[in-house]
């Protein structure tokens, strides 16, 4: 745990609480995502925003599920095929089925996972519900994606940075609107990890849904929610510069190692991702 310093009755350490910033008057991306994935941790404003998005672009739940199952398959790959035992999951989101530590610890109960989020609601839920196997460890860091130094220094309490780490950035870099800033965040985080570490990243695109999806995003960003930007598959691939991409490279999420299935490859959707290894 990163937060187990002693508290004294009568005194409150400001860093200790997740904060009180739960606002149910503006849509909240983790809660909308929870709604699309069939969860119950969402409020009227989130369901309205999620429904409005789907009214403009009906395929959104499918994209949400595809992004989630990509995350699951990539962690499974990292734990099973690449032998990764430490994970740094930045932009955790609200707990759902098959969270990062559950997938990793199913393969390797001793796996250690650090979750990072800057949202007080997500942090409170993660601390309560994302609990580790006895053999492994889970920890939670309250930090912003834009503060890689804080993330790395606090994660070092739980992860051994001399050993490979799997960095997870699932559907979160779209919240960093400036692509140069987004690239520099990925670079800073990967620089802190040793050779043999991996990056699993996926984000939204609009190469298939095009105008409808762009319109839905525009309406969403106008609602007062934290803005999100869709990128091209090429821009998403550029986050892997300097890394060696694992087959099949950066592809639409349903096509990333879908497993043996007869017939045609799964249809492409507007979520692209890949897994890369640091040489």
């Amino acid at each position, binding site marked *: *745990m990163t*937060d*187990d*310093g*002693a*508290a*004294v*009755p*009568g*005194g*409150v*350490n400001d860093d*200790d*609480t*997740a*904060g*009180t*910033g*739960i606002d*149910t008057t503006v849509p909240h991306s983790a809660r909308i995502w929870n709604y699309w994935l*069939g969860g*119950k*941790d969402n*409020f*009227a404003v989130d369901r309205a925003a999620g429904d409005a998005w789907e009214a403009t672009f009906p395929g959104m739940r499918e994209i949400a599920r595809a992004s989630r199952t990509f995350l699951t398959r990539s962690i499974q790959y990292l734990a099973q095929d690449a032998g990764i035992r430490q994970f740094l999951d930045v932009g955790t989101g609200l707990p759902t089925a098959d969270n990062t530590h559950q997938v990793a610890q199913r393969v390797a109960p001793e796996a250690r996972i650090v979750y990072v989020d800057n949202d*007080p*609601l997500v*942090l*409170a*839920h993660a*601390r*309560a*519900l994302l*609990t580790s196997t*006895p053999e492994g460890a889970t920890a939670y860091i309250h930090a912003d994606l834009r503060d890689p130094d804080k993330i790395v220094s606090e994660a070092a309490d739980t992860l051994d940075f001399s050993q490979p780490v799997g960095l997870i950035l699932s559907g979160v870099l779209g919240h960093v609107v400036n692509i140069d800033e987004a690239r520099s965040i990925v670079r800073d985080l990967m620089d802190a990890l040793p050779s043999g570490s991996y990056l699993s990243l996926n984000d939204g695109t609009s190469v298939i849904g095009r105008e409808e999806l762009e319109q839905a995003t525009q309406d969403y960003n106008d609602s007062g929610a934290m803005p999100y930007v869709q990128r091209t598959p090429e821009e998403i691939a550029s986050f892997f510069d300097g890394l060696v991409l694992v087959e099949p490279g950066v592809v639409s999420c349903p096509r990333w190692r879908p497993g043996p299935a007869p017939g045609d490859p799964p249809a492409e959707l507007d979520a692209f991702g890949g897994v890369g290894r640091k040489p």
Partner: protein
Amino acid sequence: MAWAGDEPRGPTVLRMILGSQLRRFREAAGVPPEQAGYEIRASRSKISRMEHGRVGFKSRDVADLLTLYGVQDDQVRATMLALAEQAGTPGWWSMYDDILPDWFEVYLGLEGAASVIRTFELQFVYGLFQTEEYARAVTVLGNETASAEEVDRRVSVRLTRQSLLTSPEPPQVWSVMDEAVLRRPVGGLTVMRAQLAHLLDVAGLPQVTLQVVPFAQGGHAAAGGSFSVLRFAEPEVPDIVYIEQLTSALYLDSRAEVDRYLEVMDTLSAQALSPARSASFLAEIAKEI
């Protein structure tokens, strides 16, 4: 089928699952509630109560409704009828019928079927975390005229409920409590010391999360008082807010009301000390008293 679980679920939630499936079939078939009621010789409001899981089901009624709704798949029909039968099987608490009010028996059914129980407590230690002696002290406070035998039976209901925590598939219990809960020596100092030690043990269970809102926090979000939110694994069953009152209880399951309480619960969870800090805070208080 999503609602066909293998574990014993307790009658209440089975009724809710069955009811919500019946509603879905009825709506898909475009049958108004009046017509459904007529089919089974009942009123529109009976159909509504059935669909909300508030009343039991006769197998014949379920079969007739499925036919009316055009549900012909043998497997679906068999599952629905099996659910109706299971929902009619009484829970373990039926042997305490004489001392438990109906509204509390409903709660026991829901509690036993929940996948996540979130609770906020202002005054007393949460029921599933009480020691036998603490439970006895609380019971006597609430039932001053009860005979020794009745007190024993009430305490034994509480202890039987606690086996939920050690069952093969326990619910996740996420409990937030005010510092007052830890400070008020219900049953005297000796009982309270043992209770605090027990709370520390319980907090160590993997499926239990315990958080304290310290006095130093100032005012907090739960202006109303203690309440619980029960969540069920089935996507079609809504969260239920449970608020116990002196002579009855409130069950809220409308989305607007649940939203309001969920927001307060989330705010309290974020305001409270983290689970790790709460444990050390609790240990400090245990040393003080």
